[in-house]
């Protein structure tokens, strides 16, 4: 058992832990400032901000021998008896000098810099810097150039930590970025004709400790101190990356990766990162509406127009109309949370105890793509297929796919259909929608209009990922629960709220209540019965235990 002494405080490490001084000090609640070090990248020890004093305590005598010179905390592994001093005068002076050095050629244009408020250079300067400038004053330049379609480089703000360069070499494996020139004149740049344009490129902006790399999607949109963040899960693919949804006044401004060793480590892909714009798309279905009969499928009759319906009338009307119609078929979308899917199935079975329950359409785009750093983008573009499958198994309907459902309806086995969708992109064509023609009752819940919603008798809006609450189970059976980040647009009830009310429950939809209930009914989902930690739970591990 290794014991490390951080500023006189003993920290006990686990048996097989290999930590550097920064990580060990963090255990003792001491933050060693650093720029170039990142746990997901190789160690270069070049910023010299993490210089500390170290020593070794003799196990037998307890005598401490200090190393005479400062050492970088990032590069120095700890072992039993390692002594770390993070607050000596020598260390403080060294930090102040590094801060001073970094500001000599920095434009200090914080008022117009997007990073202000979440900038390490700024934070460390207040904490460790010198109160006044000693270097000569010179007119600062503010040069900016595009390094890729999504990213701008503010050249003079860069402190040359090279995190971005290492990311493109070690994680994305694309190597677009490099360092040019030498000494104080050096700059980050791309190779001529090879822009920073890979599927993980946006991560370099998160990695940048200062305002040098700017995301054009976010640039000048919002001051970071106005943003609120909610721990969320990306709905872009079945990897289910942990993210923060950063928003203000129910508007999402950006998504950031949330560290989760079990899922996405420190990264997210650009597809996920920019995959929130549909939330604020003006083409979204924004009100519940109804019409008496379905539009005839191309036999010349005019479709009756939709009439807006109050949500309270939807709750009763949908149930009444589906009950009246008879045999029910339901598509449970893999965009729904586990809780929503469970409630939907419960509602459906309360209307028709023999209701045909099937997994909704599973969008797929290409194969899984794994990068040299181990990060994988999944080809399956929905977040919760595994979770919905487990819920369907609870209701004895496991194994039915979307195609089974279409065939079921085409064969005339159903009189009514309830299709949940909620896909951010178009997903059904005219030919497939044709199978639903002539159903006396067709409920469609979706984000956008489609050939299917054009035939609906109930056209209901769906919620986007940040507007839901519940649990998604990713491709590796890892379940993550999350809360609603933003309220949906006025007039939209998230699916959970509708199903909750259709089940006749009182009060507001509470995902945790449902989660506990369904955990009791499914061995596969039993792990959800306890509180789910922020990084989620592996459903299979609990089953083995």
């Amino acid at each position, binding site marked *: 058992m290794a014991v490390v002494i951080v500023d006189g405080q003993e920290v006990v490490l686990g048996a097989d832990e290999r930590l550097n001084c920064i990580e060990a000090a963090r255990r003792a609640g001491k933050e060693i400032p650093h720029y170039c070090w990142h746990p997901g990248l190789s160690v270069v020890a*070049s*910023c*010299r901000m993490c210089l500390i004093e170290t020593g070794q305590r003799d196990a037998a005598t307890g005598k401490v021998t200090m190393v005479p010179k*400062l050492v970088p905390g990032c590069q120095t592994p700890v072992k039993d008896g390692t002594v770390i001093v993070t607050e000596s005068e020598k260390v403080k002076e060294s930090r102040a000098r590094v801060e001073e050095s970094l500001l000599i*050629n920095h434009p200090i244009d914080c008022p117009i810099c997007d990073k202000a408020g979440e900038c390490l250079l700024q934070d460390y300067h207040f904490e460790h810097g010198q109160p006044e400038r*000693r270097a000569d*004053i010179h007119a600062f330049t503010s040069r900016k150039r595009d390094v890729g379609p999504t990213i701008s480089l503010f050249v003079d703000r860069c402190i040359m930590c090279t995190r971005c360069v290492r990311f493109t070499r070690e994680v994305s494996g694309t190597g677009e970025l490099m360092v040019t020139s030498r*000494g*104080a004149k050096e700059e980050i740049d791309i190779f001529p004709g090879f822009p920073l344009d890979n599927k993980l490129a946006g991560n370099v902006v998160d990695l940048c400790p200062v305002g040098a790399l700017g995301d054009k999607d976010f640039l000048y949109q919002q001051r970071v101190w106005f943003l609120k963040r909610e721990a969320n899960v990306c709905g872009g693919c079945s990897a289910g990356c942990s993210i923060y949804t950063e928003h203000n006044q129910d508007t999402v401004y950006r998504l950031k990766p949330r560290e989760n060793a079990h899922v996405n480590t420190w990264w997210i892909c650009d597809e996920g990162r920019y995959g929130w714009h549909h939330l604020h798309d003006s083409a979204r279905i924004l009100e519940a509406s109804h019409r008496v009969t379905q539009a005839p499928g191309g036999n010349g009759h005019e479709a009756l127009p939709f009439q807006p319906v109050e949500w309270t009338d939807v709750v009763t009307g949908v149930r009444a109309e589906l009950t009246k119609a008879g045999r029910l078929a339901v598509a449970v979308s893999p965009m729904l949370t586990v809780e929503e899917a469970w409630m939907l199935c419960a509602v459906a079975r309360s209307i028709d105890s023999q209701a045909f329950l099937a997994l909704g359409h599973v969008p797929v785009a290409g194969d899984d793509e794994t990068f040299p750093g181990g990060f994988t983008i999944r080809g399956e573009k929905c977040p919760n297929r595994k979770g919905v499958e487990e819920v369907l198994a609870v209701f004895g309907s496991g194994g039915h796919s979307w195609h089974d459902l279409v065939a079921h309806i085409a064969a005339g086995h159903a009189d009514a259909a309830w299709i949940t969708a909620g896909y951010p992109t178009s997903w059904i064509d005219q030919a497939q929608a044709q199978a639903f023609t002539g159903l006396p009752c067709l409920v469609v819940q979706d984000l956008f209009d489609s050939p299917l919603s054009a035939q609906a008798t109930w056209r209901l809006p769906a919620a986007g990922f940040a507007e839901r609450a519940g649990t998604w189970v990713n491709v590796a059976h890892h379940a993550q629960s999350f809360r609603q980040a933003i309220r949906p647009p006025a007039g939209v009830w998230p699916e959970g709220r509708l199903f909750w009310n259709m089940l006749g429950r009182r009060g507001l939809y509470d995902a945790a209540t449902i989660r506990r209930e369904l955990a009791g009914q499914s061995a596969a989902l039993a792990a959800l019965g306890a509180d789910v930690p922020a990084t989620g739970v592996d459903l299979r591990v609990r089953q083995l235990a």
Partner: protein
Amino acid sequence: MTPFKPVLLEAVGVPDGYTLASYRSRGGYAPLEATLKQKQPADVVELVKSSGLRGRGGAGFSTGLKWTFLPKDHPGPIYLCINADESEPGTFNNRILMEDDPHQVIEGIILSAFATRASTAYIYLRYEYPHSWHRLQGAIDECYAAGLVGKNILGSGFSLDIYLHRGAAAYICGEETGLIESLEGKRAWPRIKPPFPAIEGLFKKPTVVNNIETMACVAQIARRGVEWFKSIGVPADPNNPRDPGSYGPKLYCLSGHVEKPGCYEAPLGITLRELVDHFGGGVWKGRRAKAAIPGGISMGLMTEAEFDTPLDFAGPGRVGCLGLGTAAVVVIDDQTSIVDFLHNSCRFFAHESCGQCTPCREGTSWSLRMLERIRAGKGRLKDLDLLLELGNTMGMMPGSTICGLADGAAWPIKNAINKFRGEFEDHIKRTNPGGWMVTDPVPALQIVGAH
């Protein structure tokens, strides 16, 4: 001083001395043949270790000891890199060896490769030496043709390939891990240590990096023996257990304000004054010396009063210099401004700092900015304190940088200001009578690029 017959520079002045035939006629490659036939690699390591040979590249680390750091029974490959990126200002001894006696160097390389069990050797040659490049490549080609390099050398079963790699002109490529990075085709940013190159070097394999002159010394030790080598130089200081002594002949590069600049071979331990007077013909134009760089600009500055310091590995350190370095002596006469000297030094290091570590990248450029201002008559006394603070805090020794470039940049600053503070203060007060006492930040001047 006692007469000394050059050994390393034996071929200088000999017609066609650079050819294989000439080298053989002087007894060359016979020691190699004997070694390959009769000895084991460990014997050669022991030979070099017992000779007390210290690396000639600047740091003065024991060559034989360095070789023993290689892992035992490593399956290979092990690489031998020869540092011919001679870029320390004032230094040109490697160039003389490569141009006038390349075979002496190559024999040393083959012996060293045999000792370290390396089957590949890379010579990293600085870009600015085209003549050395032609001579070395010609010599390597001759060796391949004569079976001295290549497969199964002289029937001994030992094989060695030597590649001559030409750098792209950067001072930092002379730092051993910077050199390795550059050889691998990367930007020459020195690596963090550990792991040291002997454990994980070129292409992540055990690697030894040695200097050209060290290789020539290895060849001479193999030819003339340990006794001969140890008979030259300065024995270890009995009062200093950490001093291994400075043995053997050394090539001193003498330049600057002397009558006869050049590369001279002398026993280690010759004093700077002897070097200037005996070999250099004294300070030029009948002037007096003001100061001298003892071993390349990064070693700092000796005043004229310190000229009796012996130029062995321990000598310059006793008068506040960084060390012997490359033994490149640059003499500065009494008509030269130390302010100008320091400005030139700072300009060099600001230009050559690789830019990896913050203290060096920003410190070298900041010191240049201050010197530019002082030279332009806008200096302040406070600048001297700032310069000294920079000098005292950047470098491997205080722990603020990865490699020694910053130490090399810091030493001239420290030595010049500590040893010539009066001259700096006079200059500042004389040229900036209205502003020398200002302590608030002042506007910067436009820096004119070094190139």
